[in-house]
């Protein structure tokens, strides 16, 4: 297995715009509340938008928590159920194959799932395919095309795609009982099926509801050879001759992004970023990407601000390593103008604890996406019990049941109204936040995901229903 390293992360972080805010120094105060050195916490500086501190290297990856650590979150009974399911699978082995060991939601999820399955005595190996830049340029184009972008599939692209898949097929062994191929990049590895006793599963993490017909037409014959396919939302699925299952994406409640934080740490992060916790805080966490509509969020905030006092925090990344992100950030700053209550934070990807703290400090969390995959930032917000307003796109309606676990909106005006409504109806907002957290606990946590994999293994390998 390719272990996660920081090798694909930038070796240094040099904020490129003046909009970037100060970053807290984690060494001052442990996020769980414990001082990490003999020094006291750095004095808070309430001044806003001060010059950013440089943060030269990302912190080392955190080791995944053991299975038993989830008992405090989901309860002993839930873990017992998983142990039982796993016991019945003793001796069965699994291989997961994807296209990257670091970066992106799939690698993040596998980094947690693989050790947990191993701990439950279902040995799970994780292999990552290799390929040249030409391969990954094509698979990136395939990814966009499967999301509906126009793309002209050439014979050369087909050949490069198949050639790298063949190289990986020859390099890899497929001796496990279940082979899980994640996403389209390694899909043609199914060619190895004829030499393997395994059951084969295609786990599709992307939205196939409106794919480019050329690319889907090319991939489909490979997908149809799998025993089953798994999608992240009902609406992402395609008509296939094989059974299809629904596995919602999930968050890890013990990860840096989602674990409970000490109140002092949350306070310190807010002080460092100039967020005033004595007043309502509306936050959107997302890359500076037009599909996340950060400009629309600023407009909604401005409309709501005519009626209710609040601050807006836009926390995300992408402006320093993506030219389009930098343009979007510039647009956001222009719309924001000189409003001192709009706090724009372009954070590097390793600021999970700070994002966690900002979410926890928020009164309302917004995810006003115009197009979305599943929307794990919504899941994170709901898990923190926050009243959440989100665009009714992609997988978000699976998470937000309108008025019960959150508010779905379709416009800037709708978003502005819901901000006003939730800020003026705190009891309703609190109940909704509570429901949202329970919804995540039931459906979108890592432990639920482990359960789904164990059930699928049982259905495919023990009961052989499929």
């Amino acid at each position: 297995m390719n272990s996660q390293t920081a090798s694909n992360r930038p070796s240094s972080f040099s904020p490129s715009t003046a909009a970037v805010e100060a970053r807290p120094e984690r060494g001052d105060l442990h996020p769980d509340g414990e001082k990490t050195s003999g020094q006291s916490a750095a004095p808070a500086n309430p001044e806003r938008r001060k010059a950013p501190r440089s943060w030269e290297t990302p912190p080392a990856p955190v080791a995944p928590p053991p299975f038993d650590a989830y008992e405090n979150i989901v309860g002993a009974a839930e873990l017992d159920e998983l142990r039982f399911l796993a016991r019945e699978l003793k001796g069965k082995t699994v291989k997961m194959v994807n296209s990257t060991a670091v970066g992106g939601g799939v690698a993040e999820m596998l980094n947690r799932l693989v050790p947990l399955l191993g701990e439950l005595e279902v040995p799970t190996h994780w292999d990552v395919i290799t390929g040249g830049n030409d391969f990954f340029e094509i698979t990136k184009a395939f990814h966009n095309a499967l999301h509906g972008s126009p793309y002209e599939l050439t014979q050369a692209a087909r050949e490069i795609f198949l050639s790298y898949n063949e190289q990986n097929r020859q390099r890899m062994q497929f001796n496990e009982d279940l082979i899980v191929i994640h996403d389209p990049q390694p899909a043609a590895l199914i060619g190895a099926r004829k030499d393997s006793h395994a059951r084969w599963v295609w786990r599709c993490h992307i939205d196939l509801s409106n794919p480019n017909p050329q690319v889907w037409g090319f991939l489909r014959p490979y997908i149809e050879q799998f025993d089953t396919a798994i999608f992240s939302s009902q609406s992402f699925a395609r008509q296939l001759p094989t059974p299809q299952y629904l596995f919602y994406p999930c968050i890890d409640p013990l990860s840096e992004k989602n674990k409970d934080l000490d109140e002092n740490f949350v306070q310190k992060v807010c002080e460092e970023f100039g967020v005033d916790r004595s007043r309502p805080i509306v936050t959107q966490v997302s890359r500076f990407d037009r599909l996340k509509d950060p400009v629309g969020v600023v407009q909604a905030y401005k409309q709501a601000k005519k009626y209710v006092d609040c601050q807006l925090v836009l926390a995300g990344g992408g402006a320093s390593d993506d030219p389009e992100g930098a343009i979007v950030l510039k647009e956001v700053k222009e719309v924001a103008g000189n409003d001192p209550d709009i706090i724009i934070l372009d954070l590097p990807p390793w600021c999970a604890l700070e994002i966690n703290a900002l979410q926890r400090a928020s009164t309302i969390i917004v995810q006003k996406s115009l197009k979305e995959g599943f929307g794990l930032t919504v899941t994170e917000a709901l898990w923190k019990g926050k009243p959440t307003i989100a665009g009714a796109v992609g997988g978000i309606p699976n998470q937000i049941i309108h008025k019960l676990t959150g508010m779905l909106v379709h416009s800037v005006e709708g978003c502005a109204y819901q901000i006003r409504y939730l800020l003026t109806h705190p009891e309703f907002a609190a109940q909704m936040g509570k429901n949202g957290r329970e919804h995540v606990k039931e459906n979108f946590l890592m432990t639920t995901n482990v359960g789904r994999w164990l059930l699928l293994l049982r259905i495919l390998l023990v009961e052989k229903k499929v």
Partner: protein
Amino acid sequence: MTGSTQSAPPHQPAKPFYFNTSAHLLRITALKAATLAEFLDALRACPEDSIFQHAFRTLQEHHFIREGFSNDFAHWVLSALNQPGLAEQLANVDVREYTSLGELRDRFIQIVELHLERNPADASRLADETFYFCASDIVMVPTKFVAQNMQAFATGLREVSVHSIHHHFIEARLRIKLMSNDFSQWLYEDVGLTETARALNRIDIYTGTLEDVRRQIVRVVERALV
């Protein structure tokens, strides 16, 4: 349920109660609906596992919601078709009145058919969101809780997962084909607590969360311990 009313204190159960639970995997079927007419067609054609998923299992998935949620069909008709009258009728279908998924499906079909007879223009109105028919693959899972007596039964009720409560209290009627549940059947047949068994059957599962339902079950059982 028939039988004599209880008068003596609870005695030793004839058989222990084994707490189980069920785990579900969600299958995506090929059926979907963007209008009420398509919905009716799919309702007629879908596998019984779909009726189970959208009427029974959804209660477990949304067990934390105190009000406003009964089944997926009613929720879609309200939120995506904006048909509150039809939604109320669909929501009013109490799954506990059905011991077979076929009968339950027929009831949903009957309601939609009647609505379309009276409101034919509603048949082709496009919904805001498509309804995707899913189905549930179920695996029964034992738990470590086994009740040899009433005290242990009460302990089990307090400590099992809400999934186990759903399994025994709500899904059970499809297995035992009775207008009852596993807890009441055991109390009636193996413990002789007829009134306690009846009291459990009167608990409303639609006006509270599953944790509320669990608390009510525990209260009823604890009263029998006194």
